[in-house]
């Protein structure tokens, strides 16, 4: 039965092409050889199965000497036509044929099961055709790629409907009429696809509904409906089959993704501190806001030598004049002086007063406090600083502060001590990892005396931890300790970790200079 159907098809081919070329004989032979395997049935599954079988016999036949002769004869003819066709009118056919090949290779990549067979066959064909088609392949390849992509898209876009077998047949006829070179291509390519061709034609003749999609495909390729489309179809069907398999997997995966996303969302909802994390992130980015170009210029100008004598700003509250000379300690590589540090610490206090909800309640002693405290005989003299912290002078009580910052000046080094009332500990921060337990001892006794003097109560600080902070940014040179010190105070008053390092120092110098010039710390 199958033989009959395939014969019918070959009859068609014969009618359409035998008057134009001697190719019809060839095609007949080819198809006969292709028909060797059992007959195709309507079932697509069976067709898939049977597809690869006929390939091997074809290959062998191609290598046969008699065929070579015929090809040789034909070559001269088709060669000229092909070249003309490419340059004049049938570029589309050529391109289509090649694009189809291109598509097939593409598809074969997707279709893992049949990959090996198809790719090999195509390669073999190319090798055979190479004599007279190589040049045109190269010329049209790019175009073919585009075209094929477009075709696939168009086919997908079109809904599968109103397809008639008539249409398909018309297409076949058209392509048959299109000329010899097309037939030529078809036959050569049919070397391996002959069986598929017959499969298609049987389906066509029987009016199989499934085959309608084939017509649709051809329809979508309206630009150049050729007989090539015949062997395009099985590949398309195969692809469809594999796509169905993949889409099953995709569905499963999509479901899992949806499930995971939902569980993630519920987890997020279960964690209300998410917002707080956001706030902390903002707080961390705030100390690193880059200077605008304007600010940068202003700072560079103020740091220039021409401003040495000029009083740039005066901090009223602390009666400190910042001259250009004093500010120049903020140039890279310079040592920080007490004036800059003291004004900056005043600015930190003003900042906290401005936005009390954002910063911890802090007190910043000036750089001379500790020196004064340890002056005199015995290395500790509370009386000399007793009047430094009266409520009238400060405007607030020292004892209600969360943190009390005490800058420590050690001959040529700056470090920082903190009376951390919030966490009940005394901290010592040295960017060079120095330790001075005497500082913490002195501060502990100071705090006890201070509480006693100001509130009349006795406080026991023996349980308070005396901590030499190890987890802090390390200074890697001999001049930045002042910047480290003021930034330690800055970050601690924000109640965030010391998340900066040596690399940030040039920026901090510029930023501090800007803040001093504006008399406003951010």
């Amino acid at each position, binding site marked *: 039965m199958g033989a009959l159907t395939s014969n019918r098809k070959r009859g068609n081919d014969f009618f359409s092409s035998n008057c134009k070329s001697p190719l019809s004989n060839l095609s007949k032979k080819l198809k006969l050889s292709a028909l060797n395997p059992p007959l195709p049935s309507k079932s697509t599954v069976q067709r898939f199965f049977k597809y690869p079988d006929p390939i091997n016999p074809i290959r062998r036949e191609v290598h046969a000497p008699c065929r070579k002769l015929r090809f040789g004869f034909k070559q001269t003819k088709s060669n000229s036509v092909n070249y003309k066709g490419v340059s004049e009118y049938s570029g589309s056919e050529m391109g289509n044929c090649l694009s189809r090949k291109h598509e097939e290779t593409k598809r074969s990549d997707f279709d893992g099961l049949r990959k090996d067979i198809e790719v090999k066959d195509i390669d073999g064909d190319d090798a055979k055709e190479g004599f007279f088609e190589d040049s045109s392949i190269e010329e049209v390849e790019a175009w073919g790629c585009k075209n094929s992509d477009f075709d696939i898209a168009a086919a997908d876009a079109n809904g599968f409907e109103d397809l008639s077998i008539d249409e398909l047949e018309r297409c076949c006829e058209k392509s048959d009429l299109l000329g010899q070179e097309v037939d030529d291509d078809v036959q050569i390519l049919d070397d391996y696809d002959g069986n598929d061709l017959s499969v298609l034609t049987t389906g066509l003749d029987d009016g199989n509904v499934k085959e309608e999609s084939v017509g649709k495909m051809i329809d979508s390729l309206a630009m150049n409906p050729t007989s090539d489309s015949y062997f395009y179809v099985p590949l398309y069907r195969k692809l469809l089959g594999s796509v169905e398999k993949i889409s099953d997997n995709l569905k499963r995966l999509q479901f899992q993704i949806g499930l995971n996303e939902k569980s993630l969302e519920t987890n997020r909802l279960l964690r209300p501190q998410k917002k707080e994390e956001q706030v902390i992130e903002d707080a961390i980015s705030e100390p690193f806001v880059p200077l605008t170009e304007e600010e940068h210029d202003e700072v560079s100008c103020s740091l220039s030598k021409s401003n040495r004598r000029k009083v740039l700003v005066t901090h009223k509250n*602390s*009666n*400190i004049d910042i001259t250009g000379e004093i500010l120049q*300690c903020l140039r890279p590589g*310079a*040592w*920080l*002086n*007490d*004036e800059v540090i*003291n004004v900056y610490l005043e600015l930190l206090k003003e900042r906290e007063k401005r936005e009390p909800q954002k910063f911890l309640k802090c007190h910043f002693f*000036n*750089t*001379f*406090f500790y*020196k*004064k405290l340890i*002056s*005199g005989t015995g290395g500790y003299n509370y009386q*000399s*600083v007793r*009047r*430094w*912290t*009266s409520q009238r*002078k400060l405007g607030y009580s020292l004892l209600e502060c969360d943190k009390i910052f005490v800058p420590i*000046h*050690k*001959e*040529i*080094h*700056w470090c920082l001590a903190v009376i951390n009332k919030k966490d009940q500990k005394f901290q010592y921060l040295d*960017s*060079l990892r*120095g*330790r*001075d337990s005497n500082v913490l001892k002195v501060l502990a006794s100071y705090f006890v005396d201070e509480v006693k003097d100001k509130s009349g109560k006795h406080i026991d600080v023996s349980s308070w931890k005396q901590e030499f902070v190890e987890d802090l940014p390390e*200074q890697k*040179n*001999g*001049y*930045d*300790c*002042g910047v480290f010190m003021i930034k330690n105070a800055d970050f601690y008053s924000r109640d965030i970790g010391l998340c900066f390092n040596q690399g940030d120092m040039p920026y901090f110098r510029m930023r501090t200079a800007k803040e001093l010039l504006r008399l406003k710390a951010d």
Partner: protein
Amino acid sequence: MAEGSRKFIKLKIKAQDDTILHFKVNPSTIMKDIFMSYSSKKQMMNYKVFRFFFDGKRLSPKKTVNELGLKNGDEIDAMIHQDGGGSACNY
């Protein structure tokens, strides 16, 4: 004479090494004059090497004794300027 002596205020300036210098000044005296006098006695050419504090509050050299509210017998702290980078610091 009694009127004149009442006008004068006695101030003490205490150095970091606890040495005290006594000054008898007019309430309308600008602080800068006192600072310069102190500096010259300490063999310093520039008074700006000192920071003068009263009870922890920095004294502006531009203001007068009266403006700063200094009373008879008040003790001013004279601190030498500080700077540091930490290069040669040993513990």
